[in-house]
């Protein structure tokens, strides 16, 4: 086994830039094919979002006037948070031990974590946009600036996906990883959740772009930090 592949090594990465890129492309394609083949998982997650939204709708139905924009916004993000935790928790859990060993011989850990992050981002985007559509349909639409709100959804789902991917990798190493995933991820997701809720709130009130710039920059910065950390730390998880 090539030892340089196992730890984070910028020299290796830059020298094999195209090789890693190729691996990433193949791995993402593999994830999508797998997901498409066992569609029940994808359908299950979509149904999860839709039914959660529906439960919220029924619970608030009696007192619609209690659903102020702040409650509307917070509720939506909490639904998305739980969806993200549930959807991403299985991204490593579904891999069999033997198959992991097989990947180990084929590709570098960086390629694997990057492909998982990108794939989870795509998955979260699909889930959250569908969720948003259904949420607006049943709960009404108080959003002032739709484009800004969609931006916050995109930034939020990308952020959730990148943070939760490494946590899922950690949780998958333990036996009962369902409960562990939630415990490990909630404290870590809070900074991102707070920022994204604030951004979404600004979009609800249709505030000027200049008011949002700060939040968008902070969210992008957190994303960058999280992805960099995942790249550095994943090889150590991978080895066990």
């Amino acid at each position, binding site marked *: 086994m090539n030892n340089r592949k196992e730890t984070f090594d910028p020299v290796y990465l830059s020298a094999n830039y195209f090789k890693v890129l190729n691996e990433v492309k193949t791995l993402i394609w593999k994830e999508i094919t797998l997901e498409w083949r066992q569609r029940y998982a994808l359908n299950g997650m979509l149904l999860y979002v839709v039914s959660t939204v529906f439960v919220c709708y029924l619970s608030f139905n009696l007192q619609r006037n209690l659903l102020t924009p702040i409650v509307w916004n917070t509720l939506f993000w909490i639904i998305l948070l739980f969806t993200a935790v549930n959807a991403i928790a299985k991204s490593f859990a579904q891999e069999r031990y033997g198959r992991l060993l097989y990947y180990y011989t084929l590709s570098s850990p960086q390629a694997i974590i990057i492909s998982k992050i990108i794939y989870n981002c795509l998955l979260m985007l699909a889930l959250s946009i569908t969720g948003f559509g259904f949420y607006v349909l049943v709960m009404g639409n108080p959003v002032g600036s739709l484009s800004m709100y969609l931006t916050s959804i995109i930034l939020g789902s990308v952020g959730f996906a990148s*943070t939760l991917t*490494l*946590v899922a990798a*950690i949780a998958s*190493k*333990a*036996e*009962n990883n369902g409960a*562990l995933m939630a*415990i*490990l991820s*909630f*404290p*870590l997701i*809070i*900074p991102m959740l*707070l*920022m994204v809720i*604030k951004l979404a709130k600004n979009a609800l009130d249709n505030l000027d772009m200049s008011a949002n710039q*700060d939040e968008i920059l*902070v969210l992008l910065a*957190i994303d960058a*930090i*999280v992805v960099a*950390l995942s790249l550095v*730390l994943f090889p*150590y*998880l991978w*080895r*066990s």
Partner: protein
Amino acid sequence: MKKNWWKILTVVLLIYVLVMGLVGRVPRQPILNETVRNLYFHVTMWFGMVIFLFTSLVYAIKYLRSSNITDDDKSAEFAKTGILFGLIGYVTGALWGSATWGDPLPKDPKIISAAIAMLAYFAYLVLRGAFEDEQKRARISSTYNIFAFVIFNVLIWILPRLTDSLHPGNGGNPGFKIYDSDNVMKPVFYPAIAGWTLLGVWITTLRVRMKNLDRKVSEY
């Protein structure tokens, strides 16, 4: 004896801090009154917590580089001491808050970020409990430790943007200095930081030694 000079220093410092903290002269301030003495007991806990969590991070990185299990022991024990100091900081802070702010736990970025840090490190301990194999536990929990510490720092940096703080030196409040204009508290405050931190280190080294002995016993 030569190696233990710092333990004697700890005892001396803490006796000094306790005596001066409880009967020493402190500035008279409205609202704060005598609670200003809590400076020696509350603020020092937060200093200790941050120092220990940082040390825990350093040992986690060291473990990942060396795969030496004692580094992981130290990392875990420093994290536990950090949690202990954090909890004591919570209790002393709630006492202080109920006397001065009229609310033991108001909505305040420092309180929230400390609570989230506690949650993250409790999760760290739960994660450690989930593994049987020592090396595996060490590697995976070290990874989480690093991740948690970085996110915790991001959080400290973000939260003050969202809400104003009641704590001195935050959210447009003046720093603590103005309450201690004639500098009578500093000669006690700085030794208090050193004393409590050393006490934490002492507790940690004892626990690390105990763990080492446990391991040796179980090997036989």
